[in-house]
């Protein structure tokens, strides 16, 4: 019963996500799922470790190019591509992490932004011989179809992305409840106390940094496989604040925030650009309004209300059950 209580929220949210699939067109649903994986990484960094990063596109691009290079030059198996994207993400975040995690929050955000610009120009100009510059790498037709879940088909891809998102989410929920998760939260709230308790702030931050950025790289690799195409555009500065915005839109540090946030952000972007054609105006001022109304975001504002309603609904039922037993 306890296990069920631990999981019910997770199951409910993903059931809602599966429902989304019925009502919404497939490309849209796919994008939401991938973006929510991407936002989960940012949510972990921002909500649990207290790092605000404007350079998440850099890790997205690392994953995407990790998968892209393999699929364009060496092989055709999309699963291997995604795996290589993850490996690339681990390598890059391990390489830059030791330098970056020493910095404080504002500087951390901007150093990451710098990294994403460096990756952009690296891919666009310096390595143009391998990456084909702005034209990007196209490999949609060369992706081999695989047994069981055929990733070259969008509907099968959705199921795969869905399962991955579920696994990532369960992983973050597990991390949240573990000692490591508590330590992450402690580095955000009070690093001195954590030092007194005998933990190393540096290694906890490094581990969290690697975990989050590897998740972003995974999202990048999935984008690459899904779109069948990688270009430097993926890491341009115009996209840099997107994951942070989505995270805050959904609610920082809330478990369901990333999914709600990406649903709302991508949904609004899609819908508004289709209806009005000027999505910036509405998204921008909508964002300002959300920030003025409450800093907790959509999920953070709704969650307590939801819980209150739930406990009120549950309370009479529980007392009735007790009453039934006694009589």
């Amino acid at each position, binding site marked *: 019963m306890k296990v069920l209580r631990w999981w019910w929220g997770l199951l409910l949210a993903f059931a809602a996500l599966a429902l989304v699939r019925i009502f919404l067109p497939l490309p849209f649903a796919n994008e939401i799922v991938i973006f929510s994986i991407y936002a989960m990484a940012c949510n972990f960094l921002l909500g649990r470790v207290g790092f605000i990063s404007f350079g998440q596109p850099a890790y997205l691009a690392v994953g995407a190019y990790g998968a892209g290079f393999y699929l364009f030059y060496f092989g055709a198996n999309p699963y291997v591509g995604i795996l290589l994207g993850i490996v690339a993400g681990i390598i890059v975040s391990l390489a830059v992490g030791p330098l970056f995690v020493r910095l404080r929050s*504002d500087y951390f955000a901007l150093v990451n932004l710098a990294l994403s610009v460096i990756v952009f120009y690296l891919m666009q100009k310096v390595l143009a011989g391998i990456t084909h510059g702005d034209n990007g790498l196209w490999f949609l037709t060369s992706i081999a179809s695989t047994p069981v879940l055929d990733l070259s088909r969008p509907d099968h891809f959705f199921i795969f992305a869905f399962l991955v998102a579920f696994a990532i989410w369960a992983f973050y929920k597990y991390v949240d409840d573990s000692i490591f998760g508590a330590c992450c939260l402690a580095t955000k709230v009070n690093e001195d106390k954590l030092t007194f308790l005998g933990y190393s702030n540096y290694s906890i931050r490094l581990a969290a940094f690697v975990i989050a950025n590897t998740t972003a790289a995974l999202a990048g690799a999935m984008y690459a496989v899904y779109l069948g195409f990688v270009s430097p555009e993926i890491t341009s500065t115009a996209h840099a604040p997107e994951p942070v915005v989505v995270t805050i839109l959904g609610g920082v540090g809330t478990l369901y925030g990333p999914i709600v946030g990406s649903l709302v952000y991508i949904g609004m972007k899609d819908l508004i650009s289709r209806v009005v054609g000027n999505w910036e105006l509405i998204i921008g001022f909508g*964002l300002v309004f959300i920030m003025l109304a409450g*800093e907790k975001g959509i999920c953070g504002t709704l969650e307590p209300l939801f819980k209150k309603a739930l406990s009120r609904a549950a309370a009479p039922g529980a007392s009735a059950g007790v009453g039934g037993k006694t009589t």
Partner: protein
Amino acid sequence: MIDTQLLISGVLFGLSLGSIFFLMAIGLSLCFGLMRIISLDQLLYYSIGAYITYTISLTTGNLWLGAIGGMAAGAAAGLIAERLIYLRIYERDITFTMITSFGILIGGVGIIKYFWGLVPRPVEVPITAQINLLGTEIPVYRLIIIVVAALVYVGIWMFLNRTIIGKAMRAGIENVEHVEGLGINVYRLFTIAFVIAGGLSGLAGGLYAPLIMVDPNMGLDVLAFVFMIVIIGGLGSIKGTLVSSFLIGQVISLGALIYAPLAQMAPFAIMLLILLVKPTGLFGSPLLKR
């Protein structure tokens, strides 16, 4: 090796680029130092300034009038944003003001798209004359930009060091609570700082408009550079902003002479190096560390 003519024009190009960056970064730096907000919407006032300059110079044919109009429009937009939005969120955490300002930036880009459309607009260069400097032809307009930036620096310096409001502002950068304790209305200071920042960003947009195409996303293009300048110089330091903007201007322009892709990447590499050696930036005082 690069020949001298190319080198001189490269240095001059870097100086004028640095001047534009300086005008924009000074607003960001002031906002961070005094109010502890990272005001991404300065980039919006930059594009508003450029667009107003475009419209005025198209109707009157006078760019200087346009640049002044752009400056006024930037200041007015800054005042509106400060009164309507920032006044309510000064108490909040820095990341939240950052996201809010990003919302203003995006929303403002939407407004610009609504009025002027998506098409990039050219603005005519008012002075096409060139003067001969050490055997190199130099466009006069770029020299004027450098002179304007120098005047602005002197003006800001005088304002911060010679007037009572400026002195209060400098004290506020050190410690806002103490200034408030002395009976000075700090929110009035905040408004003044914001209007100055918005006006300078608008001026930067107006002056830079003839050298580039004016398009709605022009603010996002320079976002990374301006940010980097403020960070390298040390958040809240005017002198640091001056030094780092000219440093970055030179790195971009001379880097382009050596190897074109370097122009965009080298500044970021320099920023990484500086931050890793001195995490508070070149002139940032350790006091400003939050």
